[in-house]
Each structure stands twice: as structure tokens, then as C-alpha cells.
């Protein structure tokens, strides 16, 4: 991932963490996805949010 892309990804994740609108687990999974793939697929993102970590219901 280029420096600029990395920078945008980092700020994006920091903003999510700051807003507290997402679980830490979800943010962690997004971080892993963005680090692993420069072009994450919609299915992969959907899966992260559908994961229980993406909601409050256990």
C-alpha cells in the first residue's frame, strides 16, 4: 500500500475509533482487511459488519 493510501486508511480507522460508532473488534477487522488488500471487496466489508462484532446483539 502506498504511503498516501496508508495515510488515508490510518486516518479513516482513527476516525472510526474516535467516533465510537463501531466496535473495536470491527475496526480491528477493517484494519486487517485494508492492510491485506488494497482493493477490499464489498462482500468482505459486508461480512465484517454482519459479524456480531458489528452490532450490539450477542
Amino acid at each position, binding site marked *: 500500500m*502506498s504511503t*498516501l*493510501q496508508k*495515510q*488515508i*486508511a490510518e*486516518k*479513516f480507522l482513527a*476516525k*472510526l475509533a474516535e*467516533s465510537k*460508532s*463501531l466496535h473495536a473488534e*470491527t475496526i480491528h477487522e*477493517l484494519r486487517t482487511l485494508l492492510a491485506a488488500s*488494497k*482493493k*477490499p*471487496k*464489498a*462482500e*468482505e*466489508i*459486508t461480512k465484517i*459488519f*454482519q459479524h*456480531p462484532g*458489528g*452490532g*450490539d*446483539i450477542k
Partner: protein
Amino acid sequence: MIKLESAHIEEVRGIRKLDIGFQKETFCISGPNGSGKSGVIDAIEFGLTGQISRLTGRGTKGLTVSEHGPHVDKTKFPGAAFVELKVFLPDIGKSATITRKISAPKKPKIVPSDRDVLAAFEEVANHPEIALSRREILRFILVEPTKRSEEIQTILKLDEIGDTRAFNTAQNKLQIASQAVAATLTSSRNALLLHLQISALRAEDLLGSVNKRRKLLSLPEIAELSADTTLDAGLSSSAKVNDFNKQSSLRDVGALTEAEKGFSVLAKAEAAAIVRDLARLEADPALLAAVQRRSFIEKGLELVEGPECPLCDRPWDEEQHLRDHLKAKLAKSEEARKLQETLLKNGGAIAREAAGIIGLLGPVQKIADAQGQAGLSQTLGGLKTNLEGLRTGLTTVDGLTGLKDRLATGWPGAPKALSKSLQGLTEKIAAIPDQTTTLDAQTFLTTAQFRLADYREAMRKNEAAENAATAAKAAYEAYCDVMEEELNNLYDEVQKDFSTFYCAVNEDDEGQFTAKLTPTAGSLSLDVNFYDRGLFPPAAFHSEGHQDGMGVCLYLALMKRLFGKRFTFALLDDVVMSVDADHRRQFCKLLKTHFPDTQFVITTHDRVWAEQMKSAGLVTSKTSLAFHSWTIDTGPLVESNAEIWDEIAASLAKGKVEVAAAALRHHLEYVSRLLADQLAAAPAFRADGNYDLGDLMPAVLPRMKLLLGKAVNAAQSWAQDARKQDALNRKQTLSESNAALNVEQWAVNKLVHYNEWANLGRRDFEPVVKAFRDMLEIFSCPACNSWLYVSPRQSPDTLRCTCGVISLSLTEKK
């Protein structure tokens, strides 16, 4: 990044075999159009990246590196076409060699194959933007804002991260999923309300209805409804077995019966709109094809994982080109997009109604089973499955197309006999003796508990779906916000650098130039200041030359932003073609001062510009190469001041007078144009500027004679004997060679006039060659081999060379 040390090119594009020593320095390759300059750029680009920009992108359909990369005589032997580059890798302080064959563009041989060396080459291969041609610079300047945004995002490698589609698709999918779950929740809620005979699902009302039955059964009342409250708690296991409640069943069947009466008008307007839009599609095959392709291409775009098209398996040279191709197809179908949206919106409305019916069918099917109505149960089960299938079909255009007839004739698709069957079921239930108060209360509680459990489950799923959709939306918005902020910052920096660079090139007439890059949703507007009269699009008032300059400056600003100090290499292929002479000198200054650590390989068809690069110190004789012509058999013919006479002699030795004559004529054309410019000679004016050898040489010779005369007089006045002698010697040689040429004027005339040399003999031609060689020597410096020039150009006071060994004053002592 890299610096290029040398290149060996064989059978690539128009080149047969060529070695160039770049020496890690900025390098100029000049020559007339079609002499093979761009072939060198193509070869270097191919060696470094495995791609050739000129064979990809817009207007290159049908061109491929594998078929059109080799020399035209080697297209069937691509293995013979290869490039070997020796490069220096500044980041790791190593030199390495990369050899890449046209037949295997993705498998270069790299020596040494150290991990850091391989990584460095991989990085370069991912940056085809190191090569810039004139065709490409206009991409930044003259395109519409949306395209500019794409181009700049591509060059800055922002296209992947700048593509918010994956996040947007994810949030849309989760939104749709959430709506489907919400419909199920509504159904289960309605079923619970219907059974409890209450109008709102408040805990107080629910407990009121339940406790009334519990009291009858002498069960303790439930004081508070919590997540684990069981409404039939306290009932014996045997009492829980029977959950048939007559009154509740009558209400369930009654609700479905009532709903069935309205099936024919349910979401009728939406269904009619869908049928109308589908008919429109059928009547317009192009629109239909656009809609069908849209879904197809959207899916394909999502599946792109490399340079191979996931839709047709066609290999592309570069993944980005494939993506651009698919995006362009999507952009063309805006009307199709709007129609698709309307279709899916109406489909969604029907899907919600279908979910409501499904919610009513479930309880009644259960009752029918309990009452031994197998046929009705099967009908209801079939209808339920049918409606669930319908819901799926309503989510895609293809699905809607398949449902057209059903939507036109009544989409719920309930059997005609359903009403009668439900009536029969109602009568059968009604005929059942009323349950005892106790049994009624027991079955009421059991059914209530079942439905509450269903509702809780639906609620949990709904909450999870809502949370997922909300979180995805929040993430999408955060991503868009961050990206927009970063892009704004980035464009701000690029804008500043762009203005600075452009001002540097045009400081004489546009020293206060400013530019404004304005990013808005998916587009990037560029406006530039025009002589303090305001901001306008670049093509509004600026000349073509200024636009060329803007293109290069914006490219340099982007590369600076992309690589920072690691911007050490770029290929500039004829990119300042329309920039005039004065601004070219400033351009040289810009490259030298703002990019001192960058090696530029610059091509130009303008030989004067090539010499100006030398005069400005951007390149030297050793870091310049001139092609005088090209043939299909030889490739570029290198013009070398040092070697031209050897080449001519060799041709004459072989009796090839026509080859020698052609080489001499090309050389004279080049030199006469250059000297006319550098000595500020005054040929007879031509409005078309199309001066040929016959115009230029007669102007250069007397000009030099005049300058040397001035130099002799000046040296005399300053008592500079050595310089006086030098000037005198040159003047004398000029006269002698001029005289010799006059003697051979008949041959010179044939030389000057094209195609008349064919009948010249070797002995006729040799004196001509000698006379020209002697004459031209007085125009150059024996130390640095550069051609002499006057300075300043308008009112010269010096005749000098690049290295300063020759510096003859033209001004006498007063």
C-alpha cells in the same frame, strides 16, 4: 526509484539494435519525427514496467505489447525483442541489470536477484507514470473535470483507495438486508398483536392481556416484562402441548381472509410502473442492452482482481486499463442507471407487501395442519414459498423481467380457490365447540409465548441488521470524509507546486500566475489565472504552448507529491513541443533547480531545443544523442558530430555515394538550422518558417564571417593576440572552404537539391565532403565539441562555446 545507467535495445518497436549510455544524468534524444526517439522511450518503459503506454489506453484498440512491441520484422519472433537496462537504485545504493523480453513481459531477468533489488524493480514496475508523452499531458489539462479526477487519481495511485464503491455497495447491501428483516419483524409483530388483541405492543397492554388468562388459571401474574419472561410459565408440560386456541385461530384466518380480498390492488401502482418500464426496455433494445450490461459490468468490476477480464477472460496489459474500460461503459449508461433505480425502488415496495402476506400465511398454515386441512396447508405453504421467491426476484432487473407477466396479472398469485378454502377453514374452526375457559386460557398463553418468541427473534435479527447497516453507513461516511479531507490537502499542495513551477517557466509574462484545483464529488476542476483577469479553464485563453507547459508542470507537481525526494527518474517524450524558445530555457532552469536529483530522459524533434538544453546546462554533449533519420532496416541512425565523417567515409569507401550524400545532407540540415539560431543569422524571411538548407547555409556563412571579423577587430583593440589569431585562423579557413565549395558548386547544388546525388561519383563527392568538414570545424569548439553561439542573442558581445575555451569578444575597446 532508479537512475538509468545504460540501455541495450534489440528489435523493440522501430529499433534494431541500439546502445545508449545514460550515465545516471538527464539525457536528451533529438531527431526529426519518425527517427525512432519515442521507440527508445517505449523500450525503456517496457524494460522497467513491462508495459508500453503508447500501446494501451484510449485510441489503441487492437494494439498489444506482444504483437506490436517487437520490430515489425520480428513480430513472429517476439523472443528476439528485448531490452536490457542497467540501473542504479539510490534507495539501496546498488546497481542492477534488468532484462525483459517482449515474449515474457512479466518475467524479467534481474541481476543480482537480491530481495531488495527485486522489491525496487517491482515498485518501478507499478509506476508506469514515470513515462509522460505529449498525448498524456493533455489528459490533465484539456479533459473534463470527471476525467481529470480519474487521471490524477490514477497517477497518484489513489484509484484503489479513492474508489469508495466497495464501502458504498456494502452499506447498500446491508441496508436492503435490514429492510427485509424489518418486514419480517413487522409480520411477527402483527401476528402477536392480532393474537393478544391489543393495538400497540406496550408491555403494560401485553401483560394485561396475558395476566387476564393467567389469573383464570390461578397462575401468578407477571409484574414486569423482561427479556427472559415466559408468558406461559407455570403451565404444566402437558398443558403446553396443545397450542390451538379457537378464538385466536379465527382471528388469524380472518386476517388472512381480509387481506386476500385486497390482493388484487396491493401495490398495484408499483407493479404497473414496473410493467411500463419493462415495456419501455423491450421497445428500446439499446436501453435494454445498456441495463443488462450495467448489471453485468457492475458485477465484473467488482470481480476484477488482475489484468484479466473476469467477464470474457481477455487479458489486458494493465488492470487499471481494464477498470477504466469497464467504468467508461458504466458512465455511458446514465439513463439506464436511472431506470434501473426506479425499477428496483418499485420492486422494493412490492417486496415489503409480500413480506406482510408471508407473515399472515405462517400462522394459518399451522392452523390448517392442526385441523387436518392438508390441501389448504399445502396451498398456503406453496404460496409462501412462491412469495419468498418473488421477493428475491424483485431485487434485480433480470428478476423483474422474469416477473413481468406476473406483475401485470396480479403478483400475489393466490389460487382462486383460496378464499373459499379459507372460508371452509373458518367454518370448521367455528364449528369446534368453544374451548373451556381453562383450555382457552392455556392455549392463549401457549400461542402468545410462541409468537412472542418469534417476535423477539425477529427483533434481535432486526437490531443486528440495523446495527450492521448503521455501522456500515458510518464507516462509508467516515471513509468519504477522510478521503475528501486528504484529497483536498493533497490537491492544495499539488496546486501550490503547480503554480510555482508554471511561474518559474513563465516568469517573464505570467510571474503572478495562480491556479485552483477544485475537487467535488468525483470530479476535479482546474482553473488558471489569466493576467489577473480572473480564473478560467486552461483552454479558455491560454495558448497551446502555455497549455503544454501547464501539463508538464502539473505532471511534475503530481510526481513530486507521489514520490517526494524519491522522484529520481522520468521519461518526457516530446512534451514541450509547443513551448517557445524563451520559455524552454526557463523550463531547463525549472528542472535543474527544482529537480536536481531527478534524471529526465527527454526527447524532442526540435534540434534547436536540444541544443538549448545543452546551452542551459541541463544536458551535455555526452548526455545527448541525435538521430538524423530512420529506416526500417537499420532503425534510428545516430547523428554524431564525431562520427558523422567516419560514417560518410565508410559509405564512400563502399561506393555508396547516395548513402554518404544523404548522411551529409541530414547533418548539414541539422547544423545549418542550429547555427542559424545560435549565431542569430538572418536568412531570407519565410512566413511559414519552413527554412531549408538552401535558405539557412547562405545566411550562416556570411554571419560567421561578420562575427569573426568583429572578433578580430575586438581582439586587436584589447591586445589579445591569441584570440585575434584564433579568429583570424577561423576566418581564413572559412574563406578557403567557402572557395572550395564554390569550385564544387555544381556538386553542392545537387547535394542541396534532393535526390540529385544519385549520379555523383565517389571522386566527385570527396572534395565536397572535405570542404564542408573543414568549414564546419570553425563553427565548433575542439575542446567540448559544442557549436559556437553568440551571447546575448539580440546584441551579441561574445562568440563562445559551452565550456568557455572559446570566448571571443565582439566589442572593441573604446
